[in-house]
């Protein structure tokens, strides 16, 4: 099981980044062991298609769930086509979000939360 949380910093005490495609870091965590990897997002300066590129990156990391603030239609479609669950509306630190996820108090989305170019 792997969870990807978009983050403003590179550790579990960092705040969640509200944007998916243009977040600062992807933090990929195993919720059982809390082992994690923080990867700087290289799509942050893309002129367009940042969400798609980020979604492709995350999908190729074989994560099962993405937790973020907002997710646009192209990123959502890309993530969903590899059966990745998307949870938006996340606020607080990465650690707090993980706790909430483990409680079962976060629900996955059935559609994009924002329109294209929202995070530009």
């Amino acid at each position: 099981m792997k969870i990807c949380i978009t983050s403003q910093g590179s550790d579990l005490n960092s705040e969640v980044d509200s944007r998916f495609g243009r977040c600062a870091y992807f933090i990929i965590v195993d919720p059982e062991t809390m082992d994690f990897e923080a990867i700087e997002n290289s799509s942050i300066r893309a002129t367009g298609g940042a969400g798609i590129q980020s979604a492709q990156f995350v999908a190729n990391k074989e994560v099962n769930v993405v937790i973020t603030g907002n997710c646009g239609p192209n990123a959502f479609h890309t993530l969903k086509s590899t059966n990745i669950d998307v949870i938006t509306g996340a606020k607080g630190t990465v650690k707090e979000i993980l706790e909430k996820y483990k409680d079962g108090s976060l629900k996955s989305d059935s559609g994009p939360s924002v329109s294209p170019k929202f995070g530009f």
Partner: protein
Amino acid sequence: MIISVASGKGGTGKTTVATNLALSIDNVQFIDCDVEEPNAHIFLKPKIEKILPVNIPIPKVDEGKCNYCGKCAEICAFNAIAVLKEKVLVFPELCHGCGGCSLLCPENAITETGNKIGIVEIGKADNILFADGKLDIGEPMSPPIIREVKKYINTDKTVIIDVPPGTSCPVIEAVKGSDFCILVTEPTPFGLYDLKLAVELMEKMEIPFGIVINQSDIGDKKVEQYCLDSNIPILMKIPFDKDIAFEYSKGIPIVVKKIEKKQNFKNLYQQIKELVK
């Protein structure tokens, strides 16, 4: 000779200058490259003889051949392709139709299909050959339409190109290949600011240019001073005239209403001919 009419700032009078010039000289072809909002047809009233669709090539992936190497996604500057585990997604609205993905695919799994983004209209307004492009509503990219409409340029004619405002890709596409560019401006701080950007572009593209100052007797003198200081020829000044605006609002070019005004545009053309020599 190809003369383009550009501006930098929008609403300075590009179409006014372009259409009146076209109506004042002989042997003309008019090309409206302002494909996001073409309006020269309102003034020239051409009879459209042909309407042709403009398509851009969009990749189609044969997943039977694809080995998901990801080279197509890597080359795509616009992130229009995502290569996932055993799935390729194409986002047509982001694709610029460059063809890089199909060229680079080692498995030859990518072919291209047409995606319609607009039309080109070909016709005639009395003796003026006419062509314009129209971008479909909701489509983001105008340069492919501009390229397409410019294919109909007939160099036996004096070609007048109405250019979109600004200094970005559509403008470059429209102005490219011109022998001369008229920059229409107005004597305001806005006009001057955007004129400087347009001048920079012309210098970079190495296209000879000159200035037309519209509504020249209102506003300030800074545009004139700038042209003087920078050795840029002022080809024509059009004083503010309510009649021009009034006729414009009815879709009538001023030289149609006041035939004597044709001489001003003939003079403009003569000066351009001298400068291009």
